[in-house]
C-alpha cells in the first residue's frame, strides 16, 4: 500500500481518500475491502494518475470506460486491480458533493503506515456515503457522532449534526444539546417531529420519538432511492459502451494505455 501512495505522491497526483478507508481513519467503520479515491478532474491530473498506476503495475478491472475526461465528467468510476487483491476505485466527479478543490481545502491529513494521507473531511464523507446501500447510513451516523465529540460546543457542528445523523438516539441527544442555543432549528422533518425540545425538558413523549424515528427511516429510504436514481444514466452509458465493446478490457495493463495516449 505504501508503494501505491508513494507512486501517487511521486507523480504529484491531487487526490483524496474517501469512503471506507476514510471512515476507518476517522473511527466510523472497521472494515472495507477496497480503496476509493477522488482525484481532481483535470486532464493533467488524470495523466499523472495514470502514470502512478503504471508505476504500480495496475491493471484495469471490470466495468471501466475509456479513461478520458468525458467519462470522468459524466461521473463514472474507474476500477483497477493492483497486485493480487487490491481493488481501487477512482472517481473525478463523485455524487452529491461540491467541487474537488473545495473538498481538498477542507480535507484532513492522517499519518499512517502508508504515508501521510489526505482524507476527505467528515462533512463531505457523509454526503458521499448517502448511497443506495443501507449499511452506509450507520457509517454516516458514526461520522456525525464523532464530529460532534470533536467539537462539543460548536453550534455550527451541532446544527450540521441535526441535519445529517440517521440515528434516532443521536438526533434526540443533539436536539437536547442544541435546545435554547440555536436561534432557529434546522429544517428537517424528523427533527420537527421531536419539537418542542427545551433545555428544561426532562423527557420527550414516546410518540414523538417514535414518529421521528419513522421519519428518519423514510428519509433514509428516500436518500437510497436518490442514490439509485443518480446511477441510472451512468449505468445506462456503461451498458451502451459494453454493447459497442468500448469498455476497457479487464486486465489491460495501465502502462499499455499510456503508450496509446
Amino acid at each position, binding site marked *: *500500500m505504501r508503494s501505491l501512495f508513494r507512486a501517487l505522491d511521486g507523480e504529484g497526483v491531487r487526490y483524496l481518500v474517501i469512503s471506507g*478507508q476514510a471512515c*476507518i*481513519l*476517522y*473511527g466510523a*467503520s*472497521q*472494515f*472495507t*475491502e*477496497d480503496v476509493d479515491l477522488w482525484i481532481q478532474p483535470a486532464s493533467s491530473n488524470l495523466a499523472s494518475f495514470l502514470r502512478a498506476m503504471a508505476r504500480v503495475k495496475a491493471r484495469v478491472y*471490470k*466495468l471501466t470506460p475509456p479513461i478520458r475526461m468525458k467519462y470522468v465528467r459524466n461521473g463514472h468510476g474507474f*476500477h483497477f486491480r493492483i497486485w493480487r*487483491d487490491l*481493488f481501487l*476505485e477512482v472517481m473525478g466527479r463523485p455524487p452529491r458533493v461540491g467541487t474537488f478543490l473545495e473538498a481538498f481545502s477542507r480535507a484532513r491529513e*492522517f*499519518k*499512517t*503506515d*502508508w504515508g501521510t494521507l489526505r482524507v476527505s473531511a467528515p462533512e463531505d464523507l457523509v454526503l458521499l456515503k448517502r448511497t443506495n*446501500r443501507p449499511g452506509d447510513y450507520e457509517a454516516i451516523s458514526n461520522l456525525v*457522532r*464523532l464530529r*460532534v*465529540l470533536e467539537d462539543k460546543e460548536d453550534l455550527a457542528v451541532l446544527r450540521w449534526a441535526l441535519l445529517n445523523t440517521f*440515528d434516532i*438516539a*443521536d438526533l*434526540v*441527544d443533539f436536539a*437536547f444539546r442544541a435546545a435554547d442555543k440555536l436561534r432557529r432549528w434546522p429544517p428537517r422533518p424528523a427533527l420537527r417531529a421531536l419539537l418542542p425540545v427545551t433545555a*428544561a425538558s*426532562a*423527557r420527550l413523549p414516546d410518540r414523538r420519538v417514535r414518529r421521528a424515528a419513522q421519519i428518519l427511516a423514510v428519509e433514509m429510504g428516500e436518500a437510497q432511492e436518490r442514490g439509485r436514481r443518480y446511477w441510472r444514466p451512468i449505468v445506462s452509458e456503461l451498458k451502451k459502451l459494453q454493447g459497442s465493446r468500448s469498455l476497457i478490457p479487464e486486465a489491460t495493463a495501465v502502462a499499455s494505455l499510456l503508450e496509446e495516449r
Partner: protein
Amino acid sequence: MPKRRSRPSPLTLRYEEPYREFWRSLSPRERLRRAWKLRKRVRDIQKLHDEKLVPRP
C-alpha cells in the same frame, strides 16, 4: 422546585460498549493496521468486492 432528572447521553451510552470505545481510542494509523489485518482474514476479497461493484438486481 422539582428536581431535574438527569438524562444519560446516548453518546455516552454508545461508547460504554467496550469494543467501540476501544476502537475509538486507537490512533488512525492503528485503526488502519487492524482493518487491513482483518481484511487479510477474508477468504475471497474479490468476491466481496464484485458484490459491491455489480450488485444483484
